[in-house]
């Protein structure tokens, strides 16, 4: 690995963690798409600020972009308040306008500067190491790395300091309001963080990777744990893994680094989607198939116990009754009966089923639950 490669990966790792932190709360608060809206809309802020200061490295760009992000959020809320459109439509109406303005301004007036529409979406991570941070003439690394490290720190501090407020406001907004935590303030604070993070990351990795890094790792982590702290940690780890593996895939196949990293976040999500303990598809399928039999046996014993010692019992306890009244097919019904016999819940006499004590107990337990 040459120094540039290490630096690129370092930047990507820092970006990934910085995005995962607010991303966790976006996913939990069902506002994941605000990251999409914000990361697109900030383009307008960047372009406008660029026209004023004529310098791509100016911190004013970051401030202007972050303000545009907050503007997006308030515009969406304003539209919601009119009740003229539904909430999802409000998001879908606001950010395309701001983004379109940004793109038009770029194509029309900034054609010959390093600001083009492709860079907006893709970013160019490969170029990130070219802009050096050289205080007093000492080269101590790429500027982007320091900017993103600063943003990461900001996000980290915010989450650590306001951890319990965020937690309450996310899981129980009603309680949060009743103990004097303004949901609006927390909402805007979080959205400001998302904006600042998106702005910082945008130049290096492009808006699409920002969205991917904010949503996919937290979504994957959400399937693996119930604990908020662990969800944050796992998100960060998945973000880092996506960044590194994405970088090397891009290196090997000589393709877009940002695109490759975004793809890897998707791959890691898919892995979690299928393999996550308890919530993964594999364990869901396993559980479903096990439950199908267990539940069928329960249905059978509950049914038998309902009619036990009643005049109609004889009729209700026949095996072929399961086909007629349960509408189970013959094969399934026979297999359930066989399994129930094997578990000693019932015995069969001819084609009549009878509950055993164990079966009676199971029926009782099933119904009480």
């Amino acid at each position, binding site marked *: 690995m040459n120094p540039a490669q290490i630096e690129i990966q370092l930047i990507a790792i820092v970006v990934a963690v910085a995005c995962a932190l607010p991303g966790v709360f976006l*996913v939990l608060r*069902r*506002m*994941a*798409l605000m*990251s*999409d809206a914000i990361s*697109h809309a900030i383009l307008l802020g960047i372009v406008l600020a660029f026209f004023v200061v004529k310098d791509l490295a100016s911190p004013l760009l970051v401030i202007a972009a972050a303000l545009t992000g907050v503007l997006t959020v308030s515009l969406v809320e304003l539209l919601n308040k*009119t009740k*003229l*459109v*539904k909430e*999802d*439509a409000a*998001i*879908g*109406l606001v950010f*395309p*306008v701001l*983004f*379109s*303005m940004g*793109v*038009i301004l770029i*194509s*029309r007036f900034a*054609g010959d500067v390093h600001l083009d*529409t*492709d860079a907006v*979406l*893709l970013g160019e991570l490969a170029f990130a190491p070219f802009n050096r941070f050289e205080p007093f003439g000492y080269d101590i690394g790429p500027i982007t790395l320091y900017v993103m490290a600063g943003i990461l720190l900001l996000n980290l501090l915010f989450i650590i300091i306001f951890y319990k407020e965020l937690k309450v406001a996310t899981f129980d907004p009603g309680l949060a309001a009743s103990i004097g935590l303004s949901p609006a303030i927390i909402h805007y604070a979080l959205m400001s963080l998302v904006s600042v993070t998106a702005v910082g990351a945008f130049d290096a990795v492009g808006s*699409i*990777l920002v*969205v*991917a890094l*904010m*949503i*996919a790792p937290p*979504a994957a982590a*959400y*399937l693996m744990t119930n604990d908020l702290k662990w969800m944050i940690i796992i998100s960060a780890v998945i973000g880092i893994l996506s960044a590194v593996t994405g970088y090397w895939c*891009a290196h090997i*196949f*000589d*393709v*877009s680094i*940002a*695109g*490759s*990293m*975004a*793809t890897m*976040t*998707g791959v890691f*999500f898919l892995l979690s*989607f299928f393999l996550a303990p308890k*919530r993964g*598809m594999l364990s*869901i399928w396993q559980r479903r198939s096990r439950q199908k039999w267990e539940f069928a046996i329960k249905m059978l014993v509950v049914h038998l116990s309902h009619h036990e010692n009643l005049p109609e019992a004889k009729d209700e306890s026949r095996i072929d009754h399961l086909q007629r009244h349960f509408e189970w097919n013959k094969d399934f019904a026979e297999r359930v009966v066989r399994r129930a016999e094997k578990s000693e819940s019932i015995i069969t006499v001819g084609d009549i089923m009878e509950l055993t004590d164990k079966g009676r107990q199971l029926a009782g337990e099933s119904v009480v639950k």
Partner: protein
Amino acid sequence: MELFGFLGEIITDYTLRTVALGSAILGIISGALGSFAVLRKQSLLGDAISHAALPGIAFAFILTGIKSPIILIIGAAVAGWFGTLLMLSVIKNTRIKTDGALGLILSTFFGFGLVLLTYIQKQPQANQAGLDKFLFGQASTLLQSDVIIMGILGAIALVILMLFWKEFKILTFDPDFGESIGLPIRLLDILITFLLVIAIVIGLQTVGVVLMSAMVVAPAAAARQWTNHLGLMVVLAGIFGIIAGVSGAIISSVGAKLPTGPIIVLCISLIVGISMLFAPNRGLVWNWIRRRINRHRLHLEAVLSDLYELTLHHERRDHPHSVRALETMSIGGGEFVRNSLRELQTKGWVKNVSGDEWALTESGLAKANDLVKERQV
């Protein structure tokens, strides 16, 4: 007449005609199908579908090596469809909600699309130029053959929409009821989502992947403000789509360095803005005026009933009462009371007896009586 000259140019100029026609088709289809998406609260599904289509376009090109629109469209449709299914499966099987699943699909599919696009660019002999127009759209590159394919696909989508109009309506309004009368709701759901995929794929070349979602949401959102009738809403959305598509395409073909997609989006957003402000009944301005008129009427009635109350305390009904007495009962000052009285006078409900002394007329008495009764009910 410069305008007519310009319109003439559209009709005669081959490129402009093609572009305008293509954008019109895009507008009408996305407007019509978008109406259903918006009413089904799937506004942002279009965003996911259009982003998900990108890898499909790239894949189709890698597999076939040809840039034929029909092949790219098939690729886009397959990938868009696959993305939608994956998204629905995530929503159904995990605790991740719609917003998260949408964001997941759109960002990761799009990322993968970029990977494939850059891969194609690096291929030595491949003629990849033009694939990146799918990002922001480039109407000026539309060919007549593109427009014909768009037209055929769009017509098929519209015919299906009209054939199953009442079934789609019930699917959108009350799916449970629909299922209870025997409609295959799940099948209809799949069908209309597929039509949405077609609508989006048609627009990709013109508006681009990134902004196509706006063409799904905006015309419908604008149309909804003007009407309470589903059929009219769909027609209006189609018309708004056409207006935005054609004017956007023309503007971008006239001005240098104006990307089509963003211009069309600004046009349709302008229509949305106008609709939300000025549409009768729902529009904000309309609402504001109505509230003002209402408030004004209530103020007038308040002064009238104040005077009525004073009158009741007096034996003679036509006994005059002073503005000062009314002022103490009113929310406004003396000037407000005087103005109100003057307006009531023009309606013939009060009369000015002398200076600041006013009394109810016969009709004013009757009116005030009605008001009091109304309030008791």
